[in-house]
């Protein structure tokens, strides 16, 4: 009974568009062509693809969004964006990618012993330590590979406890109607530690595709904080694919509050024992925003621990979705996994969909998941009001408290405070904005 699925305008364009040819990164052409061919076979996910069941991609990719070649740059807009975003408070080296190209002019990379940072477009040939290959079964990854123009390559040498984090800013200004694709690769070698911030800014009606691949070696750790603050017309297809070695750690935090549609694919695979991973996210969505996360934690090794905490707030007509999987493989003894996905619905037309899944093939494990969906707690609200807190303030406090758990785990104090402060004023800002609009 399968009905043929209408191919999307964007998909048509992407199938037909030739992979980017860029003199600077000619060494990528073969990989681009291969990914393009494979994408043409696979096509984009459909609403019937289980991993995409709560992303009606038809509604979003209904314009051509041709890969961006060159864009007229509005420098004022760009400067305004770069000066006022949340992660801007971080004390870090900065790499700015404007419309899919590394911008030396806006970047500021501080030297640190044992830390190599360069842009993909700066590499004359393939870098032997950077494996940026795409997953042959992941259409979005392939598409990104086929049209990739730039990205960050980072290597932290063994034993280096890097003191300067890196902030990668992926900003679009004047890219309306187009798509851009970046691929980042980070390798944290044995016993090394690194912190990465990723900001998603600007946009207009465009598609930003970004894949971050991370390899964390034994005893090493990577901390990443990602914030999507793109404007309300932008579409973001983001992915993190990480491998974590023995006694290694990955700590990932995301705030999804911008964009018309955000799709986040996070996959963590353990490659050694006694490793740990946290993957947390807060959604603060309003209007007709839609954010959807597909999270997979692959417990392939014994004695690993994972924690996944999602706190999703949807106001007005916004829609949040979460599909999480803890997959325990045979032999992964003493796995400890805990996943929780809570939705807070503020708007009459808000929606939350959740699928916290456990797939377990070993008996010696302790795994749990929980999911709760509802409105603000009336008892708490009354308690606050009975102490004299005005209703609007009380609501804002409870919203901030709801997502607070996610930000509390962020180590960088300035970033944590910026995120917390943002959550505290988010509700009031929205009320103001709606008021002004009306």
């Amino acid at each position, binding site marked *: 009974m399968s009905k043929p699925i209408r191919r999307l305008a964007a998909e048509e364009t992407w199938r037909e568009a030739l992979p980017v040819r860029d003199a600077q990164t000619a060494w990528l052409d073969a990989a681009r062509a291969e990914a393009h061919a494979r994408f043409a076979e696979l096509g984009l996910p459909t609403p019937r693809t289980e991993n995409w069941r709560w992303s009606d991609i038809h509604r979003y990719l209904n314009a051509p969004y041709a890969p961006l070649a060159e864009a007229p740059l509005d420098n004022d807009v760009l400067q305004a964006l770069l000066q006022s975003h949340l992660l801007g408070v971080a004390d870090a080296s900065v790499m700015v990618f404007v419309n899919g190209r590394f911008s030396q002019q806006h970047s500021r990379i501080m030297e640190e012993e044992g830390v190599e940072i360069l842009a993909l477009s700066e590499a004359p040939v393939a870098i032997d330590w950077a494996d940026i290959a795409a997953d042959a079964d992941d259409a979005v990854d392939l598409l990104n590979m086929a049209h990739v123009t730039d990205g960050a390559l980072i290597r932290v040498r063994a034993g280096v406890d890097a003191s300067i984090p890196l902030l990668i800013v992926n900003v679009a200004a004047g890219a309306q109607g187009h798509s851009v694709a970046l691929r980042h690769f980070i390798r944290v070698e044995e016993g090394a530690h690194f912190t990465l911030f990723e900001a998603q800014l600007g946009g207009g009606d465009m598609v930003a595709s970004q894949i971050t691949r991370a390899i964390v070696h034994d005893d090493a750790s990577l901390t990443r904080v990602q914030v999507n603050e793109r404007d309300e017309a932008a579409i973001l297809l983001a992915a993190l694919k990480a491998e974590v070695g023995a006694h290694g750690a990955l700590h990932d935090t995301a705030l999804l509050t911008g964009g018309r549609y955000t799709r986040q694919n996070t996959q963590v695979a353990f490659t050694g024992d006694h490793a740990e991973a946290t993957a947390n996210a807060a959604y603060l969505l309003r209007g007709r925003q839609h954010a959807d996360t597909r999270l997979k934690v692959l417990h392939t090794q014994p004695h690993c621990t994972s924690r996944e905490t999602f706190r999703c707030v949807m106001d007005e007509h916004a829609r949040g979705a979460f599909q999480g999987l803890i997959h325990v493989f045979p032999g992964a003894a003493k796995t400890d996994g805990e996943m929780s996905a809570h939705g807070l619905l503020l708007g009459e037309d808000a929606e939350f969909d959740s699928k916290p899944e456990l797939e377990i093939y070993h008996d010696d494990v302790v795994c749990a998941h929980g999911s709760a969906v509802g409105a603000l707690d009336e008892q708490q609200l009354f308690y606050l009001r009975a*102490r*004299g807190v*005005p209703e609007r303030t009380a609501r804002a406090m409870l919203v901030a408290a709801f997502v607070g758990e996610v930000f509390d785990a962020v180590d960088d104090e300035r970033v944590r405070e910026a995120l917390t402060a943002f959550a505290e004023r988010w509700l009031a800002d929205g009320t103001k904005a709606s008021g002004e609009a009306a």
Partner: protein
Amino acid sequence: MLLEVKDLRVQVRPEDEEAEGAVKEILKGLSLAMNAGEVHAIMGPNGSGKSTLSHVLAGKPGYEVTAGEVLFDGEDILELEPEERAAKGLFLAMQYPVEIPGVAYMQFLKVAVNAQRELRGEEELSTPDFMRLVREKAQKLGISMDMLKRPVNVGFSGGEKKRMEVLQMAVLEPKLCVLDEIDSGLDIDALKVVADGVNALRDASRGFLVITHYQRLLNYIEPDFVHIMVNGRIVESGGKELALKLEREGYAAFQDAA
């Protein structure tokens, strides 16, 4: 007159708003009057409507006032929001203080203090002044500052929750304190601590409405007046000796009056 309740009738709105015939009248013409500086106790059996009275005074949603009025300092407060009543100096110490994960006690108190000041047109308390105020009050009640760093009431024992209610009272300095079964779930030592805290706040400008099921509490917080409440009405009022009579004879003696 600090508080005047006149012929108050209150219904509970059923959970299913469309269900018919499920409306239940809880308060059936209750009247009460008290002056500043007085302590009034309301005693009644379970289901007499004691907690409903406290909730309606504080403006908890879910109740429908069908008749009567509540004058606070001469002003009808029934149309006011809960936060407006709080700012005017009405404080409800709850039987079951709510847990609010993610909101630190200190933050909660500071927002409450300043929101009330703002509603009254007063200036905001600076952070150092606020800290000083809280530290001083907390010390008197034997509350460690560590407790104030924790989320509101989360993981607190029954006694700790009640003590924190008294701390809030001390910090917010209300005109009228409604204590809703503040003795429930407390052992004798915890009860003494809470009662001492309350007694320390007694003065000529402040009134207390103490709601309880048991006479025991009134050994520690001595009332000026005692009211017996049965079936949504006050059936007998008197001095503190009335509580002792009740202790001897039980509620049954008063049931008929209802």
